[in-house]
């Protein structure tokens, strides 16, 4: 039986200086998709689960979007290398609404939309490439631009690509990758943002008012390199964020975390650190589904792990 074979670790007692609650969480592995010797995943990048428990994954190595059932059985695959309808050059992030799946392409100003049978339906043209995405419903998506080309904000678009509104983020260098963020939005429309190349986590309400700002790791600045006229940050501080059903924010740490690309800091909606987790393997992202299962990478992207979070 593939489930419950492994009881994974983690817990992290809390640093009293952060005013944390005495609590710990164990990650219990409940599912693995992709092994060393099968061909289900070659290098997954984005993941999302629908209310039925089906799991959708973008695979950058074979330019595809794949669907698995809740027990990890392969159901369907679509896509190939190309720029036509339903084709990919570098599929990346993934989110879903009740009806559709939304897939971003690296460095392309577009979101490709599929139905849940993986049939290509249409695309949403954008002003610039996408750094992060959150689908709010069947009629709106929120997008953080890849900041070297876009603005320092999270923008909201309808499904035709028409601009709806924007929430400006904290001021940063103009047109710089230093402004890149990962974000999530809760059911009340509050925006949670973690800066990829700065030690800053922030919350904005739905009107764009900043609620709080946190600096968790004590990092003043990251190493940078000048390439041509661009300043390229070399060290990632926070890699991804995700919200659970209670509105707690999970932030995946990068280079500066004690366990690089494995430590996940859990903050309550007021920005107080509750506890932290350590993933069993390094990951580029975290995702939490509607039942509070946490998904992360293993084996450098050829495996996807699903965990149950158990309070102790």
């Amino acid at each position, binding site marked *: 039986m593939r489930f419950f074979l492994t009881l994974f670790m983690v817990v992290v007692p809390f640093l009293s200086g952060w005013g944390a609650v005495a609590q710990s969480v164990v990650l219990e592995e409940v599912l693995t998709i992709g092994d*060393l*010797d099968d*061909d289900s995943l*070659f*290098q997954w990048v984005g993941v999302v689960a629908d209310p039925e428990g089906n799991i959708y994954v973008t*695979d*950058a*190595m*074979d*330019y*595809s979007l794949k669907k698995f059932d809740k027990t990890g059985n392969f159901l369907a695959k679509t896509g*190939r*290398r190309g720029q036509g309808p339903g084709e990919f*050059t*570098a599929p990346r992030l993934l989110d879903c609404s009740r009806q559709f799946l939304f897939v971003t392409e*690296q*460095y392309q100003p577009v979101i490709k939309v599929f139905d849940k049978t993986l049939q290509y339906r249409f695309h949403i043209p954008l002003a610039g490439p996408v750094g992060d995405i959150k689908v709010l419903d069947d009629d709106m998506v929120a997008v953080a631009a890849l900041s070297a080309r876009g603005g320092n904000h999270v923008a909201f678009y309808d499904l035709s690509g028409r601009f709806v509104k924007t929430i400006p983020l904290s001021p940063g260098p103009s047109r710089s990758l230093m402004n890149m963020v990962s974000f999530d939005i809760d059911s009340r429309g509050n925006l949670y943002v973690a800066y990829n190349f700065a030690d800053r986590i922030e919350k904005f309400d739905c009107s764009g008012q900043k609620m709080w700002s946190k600096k968790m790791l004590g990092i003043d600045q990251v190493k940078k390199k000048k390439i041509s006229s661009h300043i390229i940050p070399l060290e990632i501080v926070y890699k991804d964020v995700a919200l659970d059903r209670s509105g707690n924010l999970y932030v995946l740490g990068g280079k500066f975390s004690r366990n690089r690309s494995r430590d996940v800091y859990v903050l309550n909606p007021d920005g107080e650190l509750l506890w932290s987790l350590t993933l069993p393997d*390094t990951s580029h992202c975290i995702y939490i589904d509607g039942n509070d299962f946490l998904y992360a990478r293993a*084996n*450098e*992207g*050829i495996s996807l792990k699903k965990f149950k979070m158990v309070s102790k």
Partner: protein
Amino acid sequence: MTMKLGDWIIVLLFGCLVFFHFRGIDSAAGKDLPAGDVFDRKHLLFIIDFRDFSCMTCLDSFLGLYRQLPSRLKSSGAWGILVLKESEKDDTSASWIAEKKLRGFVRANRITFPILVDREHIFKGMAEKGSCVLLLDGTGSCLHKYDFPLSGDQFEEFFRVLNN
């Protein structure tokens, strides 16, 4: 590049098949190298840095070049070496992961020449700047080495030298 380096590459490429444990990938697994015509025309040796698999745009230049190669080179005049990175994982796991990713990449892009996995880290030094391609003449001497991504001028020069 010097004659010595070219000789060294050829010696390594063929010699290591005998003395070291390489693994072919997918349909190219165990394919015999076409020794009969190796020395009568230009050949290519692609050094592919495993780290580039994390950056699909880094592979675009490689794929752009590959797509424009003459068909004879795609089928029998080119070889690839996948150079593994230093990994936190043990060598066996790292090698399996690399081979699996390579298998997906080869299938998705219909790459037909054999790509061997450098499990012994013999070619590691040649991938210090990332992936590259060596253009070899009929005697195995290296005419040019191009690091990916190639500039537009390098791209044109590559095909000019290849076709002359």
